[in-house]
């Protein structure tokens, strides 16, 4: 509307402000003010009812208690700032408003500049822009699955774990341990040490239970170790038969061998010999181990690496910001690419002629020329990010929703349901408005400046 009237004002005879002032009763287009008023009325009524009234009512409502009857002054605001959940929300909102728009814009800029130079640029742009076609809700559900903790289901952890496991050997029997009466004691850190000392020629058995069925199912049957003169021998096996029918701590027929278990012989706190169990569960230690205690180091029983807890308390906000960037980087890229198309080629050529390398061209010429576009993108994203709700609501699991809290979510939580305080909710809404105001102000000023240009 503002552009229409501006255009109308400019077209007929270029009326200067001085001329307009002369004809006081008439507006710039020559219509009477009351006529203009009538035409404006529907818009004013709609804006008033749908925008101004709700804002005013929220401010008013924020001064009353939960029932809406008792005036409480600024108590709701005080409660808001003394509430941990709201404070986390404010903190997170600040993180969001700084990180999300800048990362999305930076990525958009990189994509835009690079796609200009590759042959399949348009196809690439199309792909990067595609997440914009997905609703926030659907994107939230997608990322909830991506960040799933179980590496068998979450893509993020599947990648992470497979990279990790390429470089690290994973423990053979997570969670396994001897029975309490098996003659082994647990030392700090989860290692198990035999109470008896090893004697050459007498096999020392190491029965374990609670190895996962998956880890054991393919194993050979355990064999009793043969005594060997001058050597310490024994068997490590899974001391459990179907239905718990076997005798405890005795190698029964059909019990499975535990292969690849690390065994150390410890004398006076020092490791004198070590080995790993064979496929049939037996092990052999040299004569040095005579008189030592045998220790099964904690490594054998450690949990397998399960990747990163993306949606845990510490990473949940960055993880959700990541999903936001996935959606909005495409938007930033398209706008910046459009701006880039308008950058005069000759300036870039001139810079190159003057001996600037590509990085300098980008840094000193392209980015400054793009500055107006970049600020549009950043400001748009900032406004968008301040009201972020859906992604957080969907992605954050219940246990870490507190840590992922943002203002819009807190507003919703405290306003809607059966047992709520809409006064507090209104106070949060007012605060959110105040929060957005500077960004809006900046945006409006920029639009004005541009329309003047």
């Amino acid at each position, binding site marked *: 509307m503002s552009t229409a009237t501006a255009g109308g004002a400019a077209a007929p005879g270029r009326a200067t402000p001085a001329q307009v002032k002369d004809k006081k009763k008439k507006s710039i287009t020559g219509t009477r003010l009351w006529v203009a008023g009538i035409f404006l009325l529907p818009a004013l009524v709609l804006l008033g009812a749908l925008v101004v009234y709700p804002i005013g009512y929220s401010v008013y409502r924020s001064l009353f208690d939960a029932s809406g009857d008792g005036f409480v002054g600024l108590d709701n605001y005080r409660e808001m700032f003394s509430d941990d959940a709201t404070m986390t929300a404010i903190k997170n909102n600040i993180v969001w408003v700084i990180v999300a728009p800048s990362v999305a814009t930076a990525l958009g800029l990189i994509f835009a500049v690079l796609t200009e130079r590759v042959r399949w640029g348009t196809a690439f742009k199309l792909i990067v822009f595609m997440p914009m076609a997905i609703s926030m809700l659907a994107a939230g559900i997608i990322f909830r699955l991506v960040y799933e903790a179980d590496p068998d289901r979450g893509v993020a952890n599947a990648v992470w774990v497979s990279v990790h496991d390429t470089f690290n050997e994973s423990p053979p029997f997570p969670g396994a341990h001897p029975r309490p009466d098996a003659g082994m004691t647990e030392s700090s850190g989860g290692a198990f040490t035999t109470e008896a000392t090893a004697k050459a020629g007498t096999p020392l058995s190491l029965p374990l239970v*609670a190895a996962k069925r998956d880890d054991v199912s393919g194993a050979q049957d355990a064999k009793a170790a043969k005594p060997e003169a001058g050597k310490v021998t024994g068997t490590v096996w899974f001391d*459990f038969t179907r239905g*718990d029918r076997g005798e405890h701590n005795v190698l029964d027929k059909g019990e499975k061998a535990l292969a690849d278990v690390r065994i150390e012989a410890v004398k006076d706190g020092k490791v004198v010999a070590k080995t790993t169990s064979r496929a049939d569960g037996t092990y052999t230690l040299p004569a040095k181990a005579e008189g030592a205690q045998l220790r099964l180091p904690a490594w054998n029983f450690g*949990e397998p690496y399960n990747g990163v*807890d993306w949606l845990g308390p510490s990473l949940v906000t960055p993880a959700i910001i990541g999903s936001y960037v996935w959606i909005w980087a495409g938007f930033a890229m398209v706008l910046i690419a459009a701006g880039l198309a308008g950058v005069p080629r000759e300036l870039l050529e001139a810079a190159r002629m003057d001996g600037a390398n590509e990085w300098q061209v980008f840094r000193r010429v392209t980015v400054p020329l793009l500055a107006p576009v970049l600020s549009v993108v950043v400001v748009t994203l900032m406004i968008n990010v301040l009201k972020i709700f859906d992604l957080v609501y969907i992605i954050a699991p*219940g*246990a870490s929703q*507190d840590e992922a809290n943002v203002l819009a979510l807190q507003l919703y*939580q405290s306003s809607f349901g059966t047992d709520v305080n809409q006064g507090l909710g209104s106070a949060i809404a007012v605060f959110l408005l105040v929060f957005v105001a500077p960004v809006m102000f900046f945006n409006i000023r920029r639009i004005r400046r541009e329309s003047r240009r």
Partner: protein
Amino acid sequence: MLTSLRRKRGRRSARAALALCSAGALMLTAAGCGTDSGEADSGSPPPVTVKLPNLKGKQLQVTAVWTGTEQKNFTKVLSEFEKRTGAKVSFVPSGDDMAGFVGSKMAGGQPPDVALVGQVGVLREFAQKGWAKPVNDATKAELAKNFSKGWQELGSYKGKQYGVYFKVSNKSLIWYNTSAFAYAGAKEAKTWKEFLAQAQLISDSGTDPVSVGGADGWTLTDWFENVYLSQAGPEKYDLLAQHKIKWTDPSVKQALTTLAELWGAKGLLAGGRSGALQTAFPDSVVKAFSNAAEPDAAMVFEGDFAAANVSDAGAQLGSEAKVFPFPAVGKTAPVVTGGDVAVALKNSEASQALLTFLASPDAAHVWAQAGGFVSANRKLDLSVYPNEPLRKIAKAVIAAGDDFRFDMSDQAPASFGGKPAQGEWKALQDFLKNPKDVEGIQRQLERDAAKAYRN
């Protein structure tokens, strides 16, 4: 928030019905499982134990949250009523927000004649507003004959009887994988001590014994409620539910300490504590039943609605998946329940007659043999249930007599007992994270409870 929660539970129970129903069909006993052959009722005709007035030409409108199979089965109950009285009964699904639906109809001056309400709080609200009408003497007599006092009281408000608990659910069940139990040589546990011992045995056998869906706070509140009810007794349970004793009470401490014997033990929770915290309830069931022959976990605790998830996971109810009552922590095993209560919103002969009918074993018989239904009616012959798990669930409900209790968190204000990342849900998740910090959690619970109950 509460609506969405309710929706979740509603949907769950709807699926539970479907699953139980299909499971029943596989066991060759169920009749008319909501398939096209729904009319071919091969089950026995219901007994006639209650005298109903002749209501020829009368119209009745009934509302409940049920849709799908549940609606179909409930309609069978209603047509039996039509057959006996000659009244015309129409069923209107209310959607998930029963209070909102009835409220809007009330405002319009045209409420349904009878509503089946899922929350005890909503029933009280209806009674308080004068929307619900007290039952007549015939219904009262029928209730006295067929229901234990506890169920009658749960349907009353300020000394007047308003409701008939037609359909109930039992939230004190341990579902277990039979092959994991057989492999470990484990047995159904009767006491908490036995339960822990069996869990250790299963753990030794190489299967994680207990799968906890800790990502959903409500499963944790149900754990606590069962332990607390059995250990501290029904009187204390009621006091705590109304926040008349504090959460810092020694009885709460004892219950949390007991719970920590399981939650804090090494190797007893599937995936460990952090794994449990990241597992949503449906996934916790999947862990125990998706690979029925060699599962990741052996047991899951939850109410009868878990049957739906068990079937979704692909396990056969009654053969691969079985159920036993929550073990007794104190003297008796706990029975924590939920249920749908029928109330009259118009005081007419026809609506009163329908309540009388719903209070009789005749009505319960119709739905019970279709499956997906548990009744607290003592006079209902247990043999009509289509399969063993359902029969066991129903038996436990009736055997509890008056010692059952309604889900505590469902009685609490929503901000304490019904919202993710808040109140009891959050506190118990923190407790699962760190089961050593009993007193810290008690203080956190008390602080949140005091705020929610405003006292």
